[in-house]
């Protein structure tokens, strides 16, 4: 395990370095003069020079890159052009809301997919199975930027049950978490169904049945437990994707997370903040995937023995 961990870490470092290099060059990809794009054509020459100096854009690229990496090491991502405070502080204030939303979406996905997949696998080939597969296909096809407004129309405007947007309590979390979690529920339903069908003829399942264990117990205790392994991996890997999907969901529901902060920064052309947000989401994504990989190895020791 230690050897695997070291090898995985050795792969993680260049990926992280590559990711931050890409984010560094984002600001240099702006066509024309980045300072003019940020401040607008009407800004005075003095203002432009001041911003150019404060962003270090008057320095050679390698000096800028060195300063960028040195800043990252000390947790300094620069200052936002329009918001009060450092980019790091702004991100730190918003990240917990995004993680809260992503966790709630994960819960929604599990609550929807587990019963559906069990039902589909237990009644394979029936209308229930086909219904679950159709749900999965529709869940994969419905874009979250349409699902969000649909849910608002139905549950907030027509029925008046839930708030339209904002944060502050469980009621505010329901619609955004369904919007963000439905796609993942669709993926999990497919994977868990296939996984359950794969384990149903295993020897230990036959043995449990031969011992006289009730069918319900066979499904819940013997089959589901073993079928969950690939599902847990996908759930952890998809958790990272939820962070990115939050950009749209947070915009629809005015959820005060890092996704909405990114969109606001893009709209105001606050590129230092855009850089910081993209980097924060990417680094979180890379670490979550790394942890998911390690947890998977820990959960299934057979994989290590096979290496």
């Amino acid at each position: 395990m230690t050897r695997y961990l070291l090898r995985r870490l050795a792969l993680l470092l260049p990926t992280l370095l590559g990711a931050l290099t890409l984010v560094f060059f984002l600001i240099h990809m702006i066509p024309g003069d980045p300072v003019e794009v940020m401040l607008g054509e009407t800004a005075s020459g003095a203002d432009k020079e001041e911003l150019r100096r404060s962003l270090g854009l008057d320095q050679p690229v390698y000096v800028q890159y060195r300063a960028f990496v040195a800043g990252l090491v000390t947790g300094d991502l620069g200052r936002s052009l329009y918001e009060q405070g450092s980019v790091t502080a702004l991100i730190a204030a918003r990240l917990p809301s995004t993680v809260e939303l992503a966790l709630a979406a994960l819960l929604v996905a599990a609550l929807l997919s587990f019963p559906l997949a069990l039902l589909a696998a237990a009644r394979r080939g029936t209308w229930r199975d086909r219904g679950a597969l159709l749900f999965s296909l529709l869940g994969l096809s419905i874009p979250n930027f349409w699902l969000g407004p649909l849910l608002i129309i139905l549950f907030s405007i027509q029925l008046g049950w839930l708030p339209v947007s904002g944060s502050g309590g469980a009621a505010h979390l329901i619609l955004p978490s369904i919007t963000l979690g439905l796609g993942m529920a669709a993926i999990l339903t497919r994977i868990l169904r296939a996984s359950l069908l794969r384990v149903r003829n295993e020897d230990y399942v036959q043995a449990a049945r031969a011992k006289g264990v009730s069918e319900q117990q066979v499904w819940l205790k013997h089959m589901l437990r073993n079928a969950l392994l690939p599902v847990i991996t996908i759930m952890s890997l998809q958790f990272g994707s939820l962070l990115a999907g939050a950009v749209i969901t947070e915009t629809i529901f005015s959820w005060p997370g890092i996704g909405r902060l990114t969109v606001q920064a893009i709209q105001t052309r606050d590129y230092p903040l855009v850089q910081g947000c993209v980097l924060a989401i990417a680094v979180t994504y890379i670490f979550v995937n790394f942890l998911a990989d390690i947890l998977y190895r820990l959960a299934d020791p057979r994989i290590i023995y096979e290496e």
Partner: protein
Amino acid sequence: MRSKSWFYVGTAILLLFAVAALLAPIIVPHEATRQDLANDLVAYSPEHPLGTDKLGRDILSRLIYGARISLMVGVSTVALSLAAGLVIGALSGYCGGWIDQLLMRLVDILMAFPGILLAIAFTAVLGPGLDHVVLALCLIGWTGYARMVRGEILSLREREFIQAARALGCSPARTILRHLVPNLLPPVVIQATFGLAAAIIAEGSLSFLGLGVEPPTPSWGAMLNEGRQFLLVAPHLTTYPGLAIMLTVFALNLVGDSLQEKLEPHGQ
């Protein structure tokens, strides 16, 4: 329904959208950008069966033109990403060594980002516009094809018919083009189908965030974004473009699933 029937259902929906997109200038009942402020936010009228938007523009006409944008972005993104992915993946898999290492590390770095985030970042710095959307989606899109093609080539190049081609003196380019690429087609076609669905959703997401095509060009994502301000008074503004995106992606998923079942049954 059997998988064959699903395939036909998916293909029929796609054909409908493709024909509508191609014949848009002939079949639209109104000009898609023509404003009629006296008839704004109409939900239904015989003249406007799907209603009008805040500027009185006909929703049906904009939806039909929107199909052009969505399908054009999707097809161009898949074609360009696939071409780049095929070349890079084939080079990487066939050459091996430091070329493979270098290219695959680049793929790792790009894949370390959630795809849509990188597309948002690219279009944010490049500015909105159709070309930039396609460019941003291609910059992230080629990696999946490259990795898949490399994997397939690694397994294919040890096969006897490739060894035989080499032994007969085939050049690397000929070996790749005449012997390897035809064998790569089934997985590539499947991935391209799902890639098309992903590109259409991604274009919608970017346009929804105001980073896609510029107004007044009609795009399904942009129409949804405009309609968001009128959820209370005119929910039809978001319903129809959303339904159009969902139907197209649903059809592509149906076709992709059926192809996978048919071409790669062991992969199920």
